[in-house]
């Protein structure tokens, strides 16, 4: 048995049956990281010693019969989640020296449930990017390559390290965040599953903020059920986050077994864009066919304001980011570059500490909030955002879930799409509307394109109805029977 090949659910069963110990499991992943990570650059920080200690504690708990949802399960943590005593960089030079004295609510929930943390994984700087090319700690390489082409591909972003680590079997699952598609697009690019839950389901406390009203913590894992198990632990009301929802956490894993018989699945016509790649269209039709075969009813629907989603997103997200990132001023924590006076200290610290994409978004955000431009940009964007939300509310009167492609293409090569930021921003065209509306969205691997790269399908659902989203996602997963493996992986 190759431990790193197990799914999270299988590993959990193996630990409970004492087929192997938590220390053995953790050691297998640490060995895999040592072997494979140099080729991927998925991890920024590996916490091997702490992981072994946590695994030993998990073994003791298992022996004592104290079995929790994730006891002994090795995970990778996106470097946007503050971890007590462990450096948390947000993929930025400006936080390179930052060691938080506190644990984010989501990672604290995972630790409460017995998880083992292998380390902190790479990401686009401050979660701004769709390729993991903007990290101050270097790009992450996608474990997949095109058939007959060894060029390094991007894993997607911003949770590129999380997705690459899970796809290459360097962890059983990973935490991630999704502000415009940063969970779903990397999941699609790396051939794994990932869910952005409803806004308010997972606490944002202790997660370095990009755009507060759009940031959603969530899990990445190899299967839909594994995502459900992880989300169950990550979720829950947090009085420290004023936008956290005070709702009971359902049994997401059970929902994966529900099936889709009788469900109404919407196909939003606005997602069928001009010039859409035929392979994307084909996998979408395939997904609909699978659901129909399982007893779902397919319904054409309209989300008329979809076409404004991306433009609106690139006003709201930078606006919030420009304010959220003001605290990185070199005064209290993180990197500082001195200057002759306070203004120079700010200028030098921020000029050196932030990368180009972060600076671009701070400038855009500052601009759209400026006197004289606020009404035309930010206020108008908020109005459009309300219409996008209304689109979803209306359509969910007619259907139980929506099925769309996750991304307009498969993974692209490092260096591609880098010339024009707008081309890069188009990666998020299918994922952004769910962030604007706060509704849950899951990406599930559905097949390979002609070059052998994975393609994902996206399931969108009603707010706080992740259960239906899991049911639909699991049905596609069963029908797709996706068993392809990336070229770069542990034991591969």
């Amino acid at each position, binding site marked *: 048995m190759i431990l790193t090949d197990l799914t999270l659910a299988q590993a959990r069963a193996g630990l409970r049956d004492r087929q192997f110990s938590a220390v053995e499991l953790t050691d297998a992943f640490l060995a895999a990281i040592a072997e494979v990570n140099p080729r991927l650059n998925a991890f920024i920080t590996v916490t091997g010693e702490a992981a072994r200690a946590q695994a030993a504690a998990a073994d003791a708990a298992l022996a004592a019969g104290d079995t929790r949802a994730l006891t002994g399960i090795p995970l990778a943590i996106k470097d946007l*989640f*503050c971890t007590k005593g462990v450096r*948390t960089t*947000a993929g930025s030079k400006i*936080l390179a020296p*930052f060691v*938080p*004295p*506190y644990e*984010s609510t989501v990672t604290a929930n995972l630790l409460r449930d017995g998880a083992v943390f292998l380390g902190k994984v790479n990401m686009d700087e401050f979660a701004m990017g769709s390729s993991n090319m903007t990290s101050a700690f270097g790009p992450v390489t996608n474990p997949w390559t095109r058939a007959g082409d060894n060029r390094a591909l991007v894993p997607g972003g911003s949770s590129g390290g999380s997705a690459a680590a899970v796809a290459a079997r360097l962890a059983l699952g990973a935490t991630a965040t999704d502000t415009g598609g940063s969970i779903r697009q990397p999941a699609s690019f790396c051939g794994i599953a990932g869910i952005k839950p409803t806004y308010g389901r997972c606490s*944002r*406390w*202790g*997660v*370095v*903020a990009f*755009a*507060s*009203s759009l940031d959603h913590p969530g899990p990445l894992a190899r299967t839909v059920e594994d995502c459900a198990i992880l989300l169950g632990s990550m979720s829950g009301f947090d*009085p*420290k*986050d*004023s*936008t956290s929802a005070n709702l009971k956490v359902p049994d997401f894993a059970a929902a994966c077994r529900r099936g889709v018989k009788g469900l109404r699945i919407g196909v939003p016509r606005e997602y069928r864009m001009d010039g859409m790649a035929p392979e994307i269209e084909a996998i979408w039709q395939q997904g609909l066919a699978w659901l129909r075969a399982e007893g779902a009813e397919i319904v054409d629907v309209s989300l008329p304001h979809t076409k404004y989603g991306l433009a609106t997103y690139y006003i709201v997200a930078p*606006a*919030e980011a*420009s*304010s959220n*990132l*003001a*605290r990185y*001023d070199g*005064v*209290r*924590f993180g990197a500082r570059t001195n200057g002759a006076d*306070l203004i120079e200290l*700010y200028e030098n610290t921020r000029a050196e500490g932030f990368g180009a994409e972060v600076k671009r978004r701070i400038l855009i955000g*500052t601009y759209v*909030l*400026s*006197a004289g431009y*606020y009404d035309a940009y*930010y206020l108008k964007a908020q109005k459009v955002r309300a219409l996008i939300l209304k689109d979803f509310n209306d359509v969910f009167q007619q259907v139980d879930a929506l099925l769309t492609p996750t991304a307009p293409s498969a993974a692209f090569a490092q260096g591609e799409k880098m010339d024009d930021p707008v081309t890069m921003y188009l990666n998020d065209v299918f994922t952004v509307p769910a962030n604007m509306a706060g509704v849950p969205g899951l990406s599930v691997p559905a097949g390979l394109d002609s070059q052998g790269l994975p393609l994902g399908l996206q399931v969108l659902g009603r707010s706080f109805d992740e259960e239906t989203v899991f049911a639909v996602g699991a049905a596609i997963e069963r029908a797709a029977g996706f068993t392809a493996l990336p070229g770069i992986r542990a034991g591969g």
Partner: protein
Amino acid sequence: MAYSIEGRTGAWEVVIGLEVHAQVISKAKLFSGAAATFGAEANAQVSFVDAAFPGMLPVLNEECVAQAVRTGLGLNAQINLVSRFDRKNYFYADLPQGYQISQYEHPIVGKGVVEIELADGSTRQIGVTRLHLEQDAGKSLHDQHPTKSFIDLNRSGVGLMEIVSEPDLRSPEETGAYLRKLRAILRYLGTCDGNMEEGSMRADVNVSVRKAGEAYRTRCEVKNVNSVRFVMQAVEAEAARQVEVWESGGEVVQETRLFDPARGETRPMRSKEDAHDYRYFPDPDLLPLVLDADWVEQLRAALPELPDEKRARFMRDFGLSGYDASVLVAERATADFFEAVAAGQDAKLAANWVTVELFAVLNKRGLSIENSPVSAVALGQMLDLMANGTINGRIAKDVFEAMVDSGDLPAVIVERKGLRQVTDTGAIDAACAAVLSANPDKVAEYRSGKDKMFGFFVGQVMKAMAGKGNPALVNEALKKLLSA
């Protein structure tokens, strides 16, 4: 007579509006659990939220909201059941987040009114535009090191109420009266301690001048003035400066200024050109603040009696003059003290003792009423002794003085010093007869029509009796002897 400044070109009216920052009385800060008390060691009351560490989020302190609502109710103001928090973005070393959480477009309290009383007994209604909640910044210390500035974040995140008045004030006197009245209301409500020296109440003073009948001219804002006296002085100095600018052919430019109390003048702080663009937008970390109407009504029902109501009651129930009533209600502790003294007594006499004799002692010793050396109970007992004839008014002053010095109860002092009033007519008759026989010339003058001499005889008799003679009996005895 309306206040005006006489310039070379005629009379100028002064237009004043105040923005008062009042620190909310609460255990914790507006959006964090850190303590909000004054005087702790630097940076001892700072949470990770106050220091704006990555991933930290604000959580609204419900008690601060209740305090703002109470204050709004005390200002007879509209309570907005839906309000919102916005971010005001600017960089400064003592502003850790890089923005202040404030309420810009939708404040928690809307229009209200404050009634002020002026020295001539007249009253005026001053409009309140709004009250909103916001975070205080930290403090920069520039005098601790030759090349470095130190930052104290204890104040960072403490809740403030910004109370904005309409430009309804027309003189330094009105401005002072408004500020004192506002302070009294806040202190009655227990929503701000009004301590301007410690900075828990600060005023930004907006001043402009105009000729009668004109529209408003350009105003200047004098920032962060920290006493009632300085506010009044700042109004005077800034108005005079503006009159001078206009009259010498110049133009007043809108700017922020500072008041220098040592020189009695205002100086520019920053002009409009380098004014910040604060890029206000709704804080996405906080949901709109929605209040329950029933909760607001519960707060309203639990409000204490406020200065205006108390003043009216003192005038109505105790027959006090408007002036005496105003003096007594200015501080809740004084009003409470007075009411305790006046219980079952002649209220006017009680008011007189509190506002004249007691206040004189407190002023001289620099004490507040809470630390009065004479308790309300003791003062009431002294009034009892006067009412039942044990001591007369003149002896009462000696007894009061002894109470102040010793802290003893009045009855103890009267017994110890033998100050009990003499009502024995035999003794009084004897004393009167002795005075008259010692002053035959004065008696002759009196009898020849100089009525005023009567007071002289009373004085001499009281002196002979060490002040203890019952004044009515002494008068009676003297009249009888002189007319014999």
